[in-house]
């Protein structure tokens, strides 16, 4: 290769390295801070003078982590499954059905995407209260079981599959459910994984809505748990403890990401259909 090609490659790598550091820095800083004393965190030195491992045992004694993490993990998982199914069904209809008012339906769905989430808090809260499922995980999960982004995202992925394959499957004798499950899903699997991961992380990190809906201590999620114990508490803020709690809370997400990253990164490379 000529020099003309090499130079920009170095710049590219440099750019990627710098931006990677920018993104990963807060994360590293959080982990390192979890070993510092509270005052050291505020002083802003990068490396801890001394590693205070006891921070971890202290924090694990203070709050019921296993309950919170379990709550967060399983509600996020169920929400993710619901979102994947509901988005897939809705997107299938939008991508492959022909009916009057399809564009309008899609338009209305997309329009709701523009409404800020906070606007729906009050009406959904009232609805959950009337149904008597406020302060239950079921109510919380149901209120998040449909994602407009998910519908939009899967619709775009499904459109790439192509109409003819679906028609071919129909003539081969497949029902809509079979087409979705045996043809469309395998072809768009990476989109499902991506949507699943994004949904899981989003719900695992969700803070305001669960704080409004889930009141009992044993039902709270990890985000609200950390906030209650360390930020809104009367004990004052112990920053090193907050960092410890945040670090522990991140572990399940990292695990999920590590397991699925192959799919997450593979993108939509397997959709080569036309010759």
């Amino acid at each position, binding site marked *: 290769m000529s020099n003309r090609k090499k130079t920009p490659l170095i710049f590219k790598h440099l750019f990627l390295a710098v931006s990677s550091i920018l993104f990963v820095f807060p994360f590293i800083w959080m982990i390192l801070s979890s070993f510092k004393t509270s005052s050291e965190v505020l002083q802003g030195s990068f490396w801890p003078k001394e590693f205070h491992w006891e921070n971890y045992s202290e924090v694990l004694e203070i709050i019921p982590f296993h309950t919170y993490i379990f709550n967060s993990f399983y509600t996020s998982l169920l929400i993710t499954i619901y979102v994947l199914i509901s988005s897939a069904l809705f997107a299938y209809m939008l991508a492959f059905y022909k009916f*009057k008012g399809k564009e309008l339906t899609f338009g209305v769905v997309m329009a709701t995407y523009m409404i800020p989430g906070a606007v729906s808090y009050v009406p959904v809260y009232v609805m959950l209260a009337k149904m008597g499922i406020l302060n239950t995980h079921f109510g919380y999960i149901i209120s998040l079981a449909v994602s407009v982004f998910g519908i939009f995202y899967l619709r775009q992925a499904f459109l790439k599959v*192509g109409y*003819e*394959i679906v*028609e*071919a*499957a*129909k*003539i*081969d*004798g*497949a*029902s809509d459910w*079979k087409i979705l499950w*045996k*043809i469309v899903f*395998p*072809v768009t699997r990476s989109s499902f994984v991506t949507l699943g991961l994004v949904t899981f992380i989003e719900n695992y990190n969700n803070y305001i809505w669960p704080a409004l809906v889930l009141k009992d201590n044993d039902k709270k999620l990890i985000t609200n748990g950390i906030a209650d114990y360390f930020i809104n508490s009367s004990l004052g803020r112990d920053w090193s403890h907050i960092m410890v709690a945040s670090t522990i809370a991140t572990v399940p997400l990292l695990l999920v990401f590590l397991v699925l990253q192959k799919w997450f990164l593979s993108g939509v490379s*397997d*959709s*080569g*259909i*036309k*010759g």
Partner: protein
Amino acid sequence: MAQLLFEHIYKKYDNDTTIVKDFNLEVQDGEFIVFVGPSGCGKSTTLRMIAGLEEITDGNFYIDGQRMNDVAPKDRDIAMVFQNYALYPHMTVFENMAFGLKLRKYSKKEIEERVKHAAEILGLEEYLERKPKALSGGQRQRVALGRAIVRNAKVFLMDEPLSNLDAKLRVQMRAEISKLHHQLQTTTIYVTHDQIEAMTMASRIVVLKDGIIQQVGTPKEVYDRPANVFVGGFIGSPGMNFFKGTLTESAFIVGDWKLQVPEEKLECFKNNGYMNKEIILGIRPEDFSVSQTSEDLPHQTKVTVHIEVAELMGSETYLYSNHDGQSFVARVDSSTDVQSQSKMDLMLNMEKAHYFDAQTEKRIIL
């Protein structure tokens, strides 16, 4: 194998555009029917109505005497080959062919047998474990055919199956599909815009334009007796030449050409009131020939033309010219040396000429 019957089929879309108008046709068991016409003529739409992928707006459609209008595609017992193959990209060739059988709950053994048999017919045995991505265009097309064959369906539908292939492969696959039809004898409806495919493969051709059937007939019928100007121009390569002119007592007059019309035909025109009226004369490129010395060949009329372009095609030469503002092509033996931009005499075989009404553009039955 099956008989198909179309009764006054219409296809309209919401905004009142009519795609197919009053389509009537009876297809016999084992026929190879080709729908041919320019793009937008409604041929694909009609095929999709047969498949059940498109709703029939009005009229009745029967397979073996059973009304199919409201029957789901999977229950019509049809198989379809799509233009871009529509193979399932995540499945191997074997799985692609087996999918329809699996859904219909055939035993594993039977599926294996049928797929193997189809693969044998199509020469795909070596590729059964490959994914479509790893196949060439021709092989993909064969898999698409295989998917149809294994099902043993009553009717095969093919929607421009060869148009994504290169010219050489197209000719080869054309012959293969014809051979396949010979072997299987399955009633087949084949859609194409390529009149050569229609001529070479069809037992009967259905020529369509603007959603209306122009003519139904065997390739020879359609070629020899086109029902109207459109069919004459569309079928044949190059298509028929047309001259608008006037019929007089002695000849057909176009500009300064006086073309001798055979006696008995002249008599017929007289009886049908076409005398001294404008009509359209159609003549195929091959019915021109290079003028020899003698002028006494029966029903040949000599004309002098100015050749604009002469195209040597190998065994023959296409001569492009125009007369009285009406351009035409003549196809002559390439042994005659013709230069572009030259003058020469051509003979017209008036016995082979076709006549069309100038108003309706329909063939004048003689």
